[in-house]
């Protein structure tokens, strides 16, 4: 009995079928609580005005965009090292969700930038590195779609994810070096001094949890789809051969 048992497609399908309703319910509750709380029951901020409400979607989506890539890196490594198919398929399933999160962070940031900085877009390091992250997502998804053989696609996208991660970090550094920028520092630090006040902080926590749970639900659903489509492919190929 080890954790790797869940990498077995059959076991995974059973467990995820059981877990999915729970996660769905939990995700709906936290997300709705957080967003409603944030949108309706928070005051204006001195420096941001009512635009501060954007933070409840901007920050969680930005965090998820990064975290999903990290999750894809981990699952890709598991595939490359231990050859568990579900792991590779989970990475495949997560990528479009990550792309959507990146897009949400970009759009909400751009919409926020217009009143705050007077411009939709600024070549700020954090913004720029998000654009590059979006490109990595696009390339990763396009590579999956371009290759017919699923195992080949899993291997190649895994290698791309690995190399891409290194270069995403490198770009982050390069972009910092190239432009100083306007964007907020990390105010979610443990350092109480820099932290946002509690009025904004608690609903934000709910939103972050909601986005995480939403991501889990989506990845489970999509991974289940990928497992099924993989099985469908195998059955079709076997029928062709027979």
């Amino acid at each position: 009995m080890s954790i790797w048992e869940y990498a077995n497609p059959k076991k995974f399908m059973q467990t995820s079928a059981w877990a999915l309703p729970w996660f769905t319910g939990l995700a709906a509750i936290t997300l709705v609580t957080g967003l409603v709380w944030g949108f309706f029951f928070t005051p204006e901020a001195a420096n941001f005005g009512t635009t501060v409400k954007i933070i409840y979607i901007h920050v969680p989506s930005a965090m998820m965009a990064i975290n999903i890539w990290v999750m894809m890196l981990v699952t890709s490594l598991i595939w490359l090292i231990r050859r568990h198919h579900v792991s590779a398929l989970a990475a495949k399933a997560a990528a479009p969700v990550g792309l959507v999160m990146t897009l949400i962070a970009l759009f909400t940031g751009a919409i926020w930038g217009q009143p705050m900085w007077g411009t939709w877009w600024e070549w700020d390091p954090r913004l720029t590195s998000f654009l590059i992250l979006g490109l990595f997502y696009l390339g990763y998804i396009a590579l999956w779609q371009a290759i017919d053989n699923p195992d080949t696609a899993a291997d190649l996208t895994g290698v791309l994810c690995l190399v891409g991660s290194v270069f995403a970090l490198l770009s982050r550094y390069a972009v910092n070096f190239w432009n100083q920028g306007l964007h907020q520092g990390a105010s979610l630090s443990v350092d109480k001094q820099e932290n946002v006040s509690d009025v904004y902080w608690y609903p934000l926590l709910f939103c972050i949890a909601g986005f995480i749970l939403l991501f889990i639900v989506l990845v489970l659903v999509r991974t289940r789809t990928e497992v099924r489509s993989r099985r469908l492919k195998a059955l079709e190929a076997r029928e062709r051969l027979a």
Partner: protein
Amino acid sequence: MIALLLRDLRLAVRAGGGFGLSLAFFLIVTVLVPFGVGPEGGTLARIAPGILWVGALLACLLSLDRIYALDFEDGSLDLLATAPIPMEAVVSVKALAHWLTTGLPLVLAAPVFGVLLHLPGPAYFWLVISLAVGTPALSVLGAFGAALTVGLKRGGLLLSLLVLPLYVPTLIFGAELIARGSAGGATATPLLMLAGITAATVALVPFAAAAAIRVNLR
């Protein structure tokens, strides 16, 4: 390995201009930009380093799909994979051949194109330095992207999409090096970073590329 390098260079020459065509493309980009942007010297001089780097990068990019495609189509890649040369060496040699036919001519010809864009005087030195140090990384990263897409029908545009984000750090440090150099600023950091990226990619990326090719040949 030397045999492979010589063969690749000979093929590039016989195919009618490994050297010529990438230079011509570089030339055309540097010619088009003034048409698009307008002819004022001031603006052009301001953007010249960046445009020259972007042009070099695109010229490099467009020739990437030749790295393995022909060898894959006619079966040479299968035979090379079973030959007593490690795939890592094959990849490195092919990246080197690509650099010799694409990057090196660009490095040598860049000052001429700089004139077309009114590049200011002190920038020429740094233009050549930054291209010379940076373009090998472009070739190696391109060889990696080409390895990922070898055997895909019309992988060309996909290849661009995969490779371009990998080119970003090289591009930033390359253009920054020229900008700082010609403004008399401190050049140590961008130069070190550029050299570091090139050294690290040349040392490590061939392993990833070789793995990708082996997977694609399966």
